């Protein structure tokens, strides 16, 4: 039997499940009202087993209607952004590719801002679909411009910077059209999970479940794509088809995340790199473990956002930038800037 493989083992899955569950419950402990950790755990166990709740009605409402949806949404958004980031890095064969650098997030942000400003009564469940069009548009524009300039990844990334800047400029222009919605738009730009309820969780859950399944199923093909189109074709796959499928899924995941949480940066770069350093470079482990790592990263970041300046809240995008930027520099130094 071959040794030296980088594959997902049952220990990875078990460890990831335990860490995820631990962070999920721990994150729910933090907030303006102090809830004892042992009572929260007893409550979770009671809910799972149908036992008697140890919490008062008010405490129960705080836990299940305020904190849990926020924590869960944070996890879903983090999972989506990290998994998309890993996928973009695989497709474009560049470690700096992420939803933000390729215009996916800027496109989604522009469309959502447009909806908030120009059609404020749009149902929340429609926002992921609208954001998806912007996300696909952003990546498509980046791809087209990058390929027209040259075949290198530098061309692609420069095109991504240009497209993201342009779409952000359009977004800024649109937001200035209606000063009544400025605060809401700014909140969106900085990113946040503050207004979260179960409705928002349910609005994005179907998109994120489907895209996660597609991306995890295609993770092995990202390793094949890393050989370049010619070798990938000689191994029997259709690179164009695989790219279209995974870019579509990653853009939809990004769009769904952006539509409910606003623009939260660095998750898509930091988490996949950390997973690579810890568990190996094969996308067969990077993609699924980025899902879990992204969820954990954003749930922890949200706890910091909620508690660092309590009772005031920091935008979560600020927290991820504070922790993500220095971490990213460390990763760059540790890897010597090697390609993914």
């Amino acid at each position, binding site marked *: *039997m*071959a*040794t*030296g*493989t*980088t594959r997902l083992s049952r220990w990875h899955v078990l460890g990831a499940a335990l860490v995820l569950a631990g962070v999920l419950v721990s994150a729910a402990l933090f907030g303006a009202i102090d809830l004892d950790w042992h009572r929260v755990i007893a409550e979770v166990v009671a809910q799972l087993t149908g036992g008697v709740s140890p919490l008062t009605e008010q405490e129960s409402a705080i836990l299940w209607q305020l904190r849990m949806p926020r924590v869960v949404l944070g996890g879903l958004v983090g999972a989506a952004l990290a998994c998309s980031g890993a996928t973009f890095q695989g497709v474009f064969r560049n470690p700096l590719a992420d939803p933000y650098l390729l215009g996916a997030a800027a496109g989604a942000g522009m469309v959502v801002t447009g909806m908030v400003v120009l059609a404020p009564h749009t149902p929340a469940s429609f926002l992921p679909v609208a954001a998806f069009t912007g996300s696909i548009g952003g990546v498509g524009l980046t791809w087209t411009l990058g390929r027209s300039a040259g075949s290198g990844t530098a061309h692609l990334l420069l095109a991504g910077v240009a497209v993201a800047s342009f779409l952000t400029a359009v977004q800024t222009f649109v937001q200035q059209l209606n000063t009544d919605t400025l605060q809401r738009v700014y909140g969106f730009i900085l990113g946040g999970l503050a207004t979260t309820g179960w409705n928002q969780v349910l609005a994005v859950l179907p998109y994120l479940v489907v895209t996660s399944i597609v991306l995890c*199923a295609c993770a*092995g*093909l990202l*390793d*094949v794509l*890393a*050989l*370049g189109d*010619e*070798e990938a*074709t*000689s*191994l*029997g*796959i*259709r690179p164009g088809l695989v790219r279209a499928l995974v870019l579509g899924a990653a853009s939809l995941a990004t769009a769904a995340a952006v539509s409910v949480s606003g623009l939260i940066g660095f998750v898509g770069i930091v988490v996949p790199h950390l997973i*690579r350093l810890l568990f*190996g*470079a*094969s996308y067969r482990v990077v993609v699924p473990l980025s899902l879990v790592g992204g969820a954990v990263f954003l749930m922890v970041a949200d706890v910091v956002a909620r508690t660092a300046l309590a009772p005031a809240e920091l935008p979560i995008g600020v927290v991820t930038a504070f922790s993500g930027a220095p971490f990213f520099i460390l990763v760059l130094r540790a890897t010597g800037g*090697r*390609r*993914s």
Partner: protein
Amino acid sequence: MTRPLVTTALCLRGVGAGYRGRPVVHDVTVQVPGGSWLAVLGPNGSGKSTLLKSMAGLVDSTGELLVHGRPVSTMGNRERARAIGYAPQIPALPDGLTVTDYVLLGRTPHLGPLGREGPSDLSLVAEVLTRLDLSNLAGRPLRTLSGGERQRTVLARVLAQQAGVLLLDEPTTGLDIGHAQALLELVDGLRTTEGVTVVTTLHDLTLAAQYPDQVLLLDAGEVAAVGSPSHVLTAERLARHYAANLTVLTGPDGHPVVAPVRGH
């Protein structure tokens, strides 16, 4: 009497190939019997790599190109990948992957829709690693390998594909003469023991005289000569097509030895 078609692994009749309507190779006709070795030779830019890519179905081609009697153009991608293994001149080696991860990519055309390798795939890769003396490097990241180890790893990936035809574009690029010899001996051993058919491009004409059964000399995309090494590799022909001053000696094993001669 003509040779039965089934013994011909590769058959090219009037094959032309190129990129986006720009023809590079014209009217190539050659037959490669199963288990034999064809070397494609020629000066830089003569179309060697393009011809190899056309055999792998990676570039547009015209004419008739058969693998084990079946037209390559009618094969699906996966079916073609199970029949033809291809290693480019400069293979991409994603530096974070381990040797085993990389070699396992050769199993891609044999995997199901979810792409999970089974125990048989892992066993086969372990066998290939052992055969190519790579077992001790199995868990090593590709970026830590030497040039010779990298070339053997690429060969292992192609072998893991279990294709009957191996197309190797300049497999000795960047290798010193010892490593180049070792790699070609390895390929020759596989050809003998496994019966695989080998097509390589080669720049070193002396090595090209020693290993292949037949050589095909290309110049400006046209076939200048095809036949046994001793028939094709003559001083007059090579001097003409390579625009070089050289002489062809006879080595101690009877094979031609191509030696450059400094002009005056």
